[in-house]
């Protein structure tokens, strides 16, 4: 009595199954095609840099007589990327915003030796950067240095240092300036955060808030991020202001021993990281607004644009092992700033 209904109904699950099968077939070749691949787990602002590096590296690797390699990339906040690796994201190499995030991986898992930072030159940092100010065209609020950020009516955009590596450098740069200018650093940094109307979780989110949403008068940004924003969003809208004091930000890289199955994979991962120090890669690094170490092949214009700043390094603060818990740990100085600010 239900004959017609049966035929039409029977067709439903079957076509669904067929559809599912077709989709599976679509998805499978993609997995099968992954012959030699390398997963680089990195932080937010390096997307453009590594896209270019990965292309150059693949070409170089093949020219050395190896099989073609596919470099895969994952980007996000430095802390959340480190957490993903701790929870099992099988990164072959990590290229994060600060050493403390890689330290966290070494501490919480057996994937890395504790002394990972001594395995590559320059503290395992193939490039460095610093923190500068991005202001609106013509600098209407007249912002020249850190002290101007806490003036009445100035809104500062910076991400949350708890989640963003870049924001931790911002915070430390402000701290360093206050120390050098006879102010109580804790009070100054506290004042600074009271001028922050939006606390994004990552550097990119903060740049978007400032540049595209029109919030705030000044963005504390990675130097590379500031130049990139000028490039991508129009240099007739923003100016870069270089403060008198800033930090030497060293974003480190390392290979993740525990995720490398055999010698071939280890060789590939190490070759990839060593490649970052070659003149060819360093030229790309300069081009992407990072400060490299070897300018021999770089376009001189790319090198010349970086101004001289007094740079304070993390060692001057006593190293990440001391800074991380003291300033950014649970109940640390940053937490105190906000719990006091709320009263």
């Amino acid at each position, binding site marked *: 009595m239900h004959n017609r209904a049966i035929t039409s109904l029977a067709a439903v699950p079957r076509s669904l199954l067929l559809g599912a099968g077709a989709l599976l077939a679509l998805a499978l070749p993609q997995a099968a095609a992954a012959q030699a691949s390398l997963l680089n787990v990195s932080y937010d602002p390096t997307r453009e840099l590594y896209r270019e590096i990965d292309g150059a590296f693949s070409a170089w690797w093949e020219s050395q007589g190896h099989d073609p390699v596919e470099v895969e990339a994952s980007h996000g*906040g430095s*802390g*959340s990327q*480190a*957490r993903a690796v*701790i929870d099992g994201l099988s990164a072959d190499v990590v290229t994060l915003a600060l050493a403390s995030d890689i330290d*966290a991986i070494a501490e*919480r898992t057996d994937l890395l030796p504790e002394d990972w930072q001594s395995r590559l030159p320059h503290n395992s940092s193939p490039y460095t950067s610093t923190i500068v100010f991005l202001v609106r065209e013509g600098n209407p609020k007249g912002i020249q240095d850190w002290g101007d950020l806490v003036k009445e009516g100035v809104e500062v955009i910076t991400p*949350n240092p*708890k*989640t963003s590596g870049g924001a931790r450098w911002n915070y430390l740069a402000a701290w360093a300036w206050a120390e050098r200018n006879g102010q109580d650093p804790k009070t100054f940094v506290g004042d600074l955060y009271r001028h*922050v*109307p*939006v*606390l*994004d*979780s990552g550097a990119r989110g903060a740049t978007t*808030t400032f540049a*595209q*949403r*029109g*919030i705030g008068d000044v963005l504390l940004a990675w130097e590379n991020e500031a130049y990139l924003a000028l490039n991508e969003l129009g240099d007739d809208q923003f100016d870069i202001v270089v403060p008198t004091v800033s930090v030497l930000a060293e974003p480190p890289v390392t290979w993740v021993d525990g995720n490398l199955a055999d010698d071939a994979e280890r060789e590939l991962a190490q070759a990839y990281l060593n490649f970052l120090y070659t003149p060819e890669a360093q030229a790309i690094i300069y081009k992407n607004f990072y400060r490299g170490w070897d300018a021999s092949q770089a376009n001189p214009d790319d090198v010349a644009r970086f101004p001289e700043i007094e740079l304070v390094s993390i060692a001057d603060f006593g190293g990440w092992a001391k800074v991380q818990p003291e300033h*950014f740990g*649970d109940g640390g100085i940053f*937490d105190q700033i*906000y*719990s006091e*600010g*709320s009263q």
Partner: protein
Amino acid sequence: MTTRPGAWSLRAPSPLPGWGLSLGITLTLLSLVVLLPIGALLIRAAGIGPAELWATISSPRVLAALVLSFRAALVAALFNLVFGLALAWVLVRYEFPGRRLIDAAVDLPFALPTAVAGIALTALYAPNGALGGPIQDWFGVRVAYTELGIWIALVFVGLPFVVRTVQPVIAEIEKEVEEVSATLGASRLTTWRRVILPMLTPALLTGFALALARAVGEYGSVIFIAGNLPFQTEIAPLLIVIRLEEFDYDGAVAIAVAMLAISFVLLLLINLIQVWSRRHTAGA
């Protein structure tokens, strides 16, 4: 509620087959997808210990985030209660061009990816956006990056729930009832107050609770439009993500358990409303 009183065996006898199979599939999938993951959370929470859990949950910043999540969800659900009722009434009772289209549009927030909704709403309501600019100029109110922005995102995600719960009930109201009320001399306002609203109350409450439950946990659309400032515009789900990024699993678990408890209470409330409304309508 459907268990027969006095049934001593686990299951009342039935001639129909497939109890074992269907229950087997149900329990297997339920365990794999829902119970095991939530169990993992609870086990982890048990390992932390109640004192520590409470210390985390009652810390000012977490409390502020939970209160904000709950308050914003409540405001949005209340707004949706009124707005959703009006919209449902208009869609069922009034004739106007494009009614079918509008009716279909109500489902959009349900199907639109929350991240897309968040980005689109932020772009519109930011101070330099198409709507945010004029609003700031005329009313001096900033929408995006304030609690107002959170409300808008939550109204967006919760709207279909109220409309779609109330709509069928309005459609079923017999016009005769209203006519009788009118014949007996009641004004339209009195008819609304004494006849229509009581009939709609259970559905309205259900829709309200659903919109509320959805809004308390919403993440994707809110983080774009909220300012994410601790103590001001930081919602509880965001705080969970922040804790995770600090490698503070215990902190994340504690907040998650608190939210889970809130969700469970809400759910219980929804179900109680259901039971109550059934009795109520049965007795009416």
